[in-house]
């Protein structure tokens, strides 16, 4: 067996302040400090980077591909969770028409 069968650390990179940290890849390292150093060499050799995170891959508990449909499908039906699930403007306009309502300052 090789002598570098070290844990995998997933690497997240932030390009500029205010941006999210985005997953860019992974490195092998014996500890987090080394993982950060290797991540810098591997993913921040060029291009912008102001912050790097390294996360032990084993700490990531993930959803399973075969369950995805069941797990996430219903989210599409829940329009009430989104702005587009509400039709307000049209109802206000109709009410104003029916009652002869106008805006005071618009007169």
């Amino acid at each position, binding site marked *: 067996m090789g002598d570098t*069968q070290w844990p995998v650390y997933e690497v997240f990179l932030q390009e500029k302040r205010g941006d999210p940290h985005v997953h*860019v890849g992974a490195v092998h390292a014996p500890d987090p400090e080394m993982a950060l150093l290797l991540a810098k060499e591997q993913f921040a050799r060029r291009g912008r980077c102001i912050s790097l995170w390294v996360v032990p891959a084993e700490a990531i508990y993930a959803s399973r591909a075969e369950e995805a449909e069941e797990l996430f499908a219903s989210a599409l039906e829940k329009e009430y969770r989104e702005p587009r699930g509400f039709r307000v403007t049209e109802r206000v306009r109709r009410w104003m028409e029916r009652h002869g309502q106008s805006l005071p300052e618009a007169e």
Partner: protein
Amino acid sequence: MLTYRIHGQVVPVPEQAPPPQEGPEYEARLAEFEARIARGEKIEPTDWMPEEYRRQLIRMISQHAHSEIVGMLPEGKWIPHAPTLRRKLILIAKVQDEGGHGQLLYRAAETLGITREEMIEALLAGKAKYSVVFNYPTPTWADVAAIGLLIDGAAVVNQLMLAQGSYGPYARAMKRICYEESFHIKQGYDAFVALATGTPAQRQMMQEAVNRWWYPALMLFGPPDRDSVHTPTLLRWRIKTKTNDELRQEFVDQYAPMVLRLGLTIPDPNLRYDPETGHWRFSEPDWDEFWRVIKGDGPCNAERMAARRRAHEEGRWVREALAAKAGRGVNGGSDGRYAMAGV
């Protein structure tokens, strides 16, 4: 014998049969898998995939990774002898990129169930293959320029195709690698132009390097389609999206004019532009030589493996030191550097 290729390299497919994959359930899953690929979707590590798909990808990606690592050697040799400090800095950056690409690719292969250490050991044991082109020597500085333009150029033509492939982690690695390789081609072209527009002696040196590297560049795409057993499977599953011959033609169309424009020649009496097809006609490489070099009988096969093993041995103390440090629990945990500390 069944064989399969990456980067101009042909290797036998392992003897052991894949786990039994048949029956109605398998057929249904296969149909779903192929439909997904036909829709242009990527396959991710946790998705179901046929064992043959997994096996072909492990071979392709690991050999691609080995090619990046061994590919550091022919040019790395010139770092101490680069003609100027600027060229030296550029070459160091380029060779470092190749090492980085190797690591990215080992990681992509690992998502399929093999470990990086298994791959590295296979390489050091001489069991793994890498691109045939890195078994050719670099006797002059002009060879570095020729590699930068022609070999990296050919590699990018191949890799842009692979970036369109169906396996997510491989395609993503390819995108990043292609981005960095565009610097490699540009620096190669820059060094190439410097010599080609230089003194008669420099032009002569560049011409001789082109003569040495033209056919290896064509070999990089692998054997002709007529000898390529696995192409239909690789295409159907979009592991590849173009055939070796299609890629070779693309390369010649793109790169032959770059050489000819500078008044240099290409060592092929049949090379000519065909206005009817809009493509360049060219001679195929010597395929007997190709197979000889692949089987280990190239000018530098032994030298490359010896250099790789020496580097691995000489780096052992570093790996041991890192492991020892980690074992003592001296790490980044106690110095307030956790990203969410204090939140």
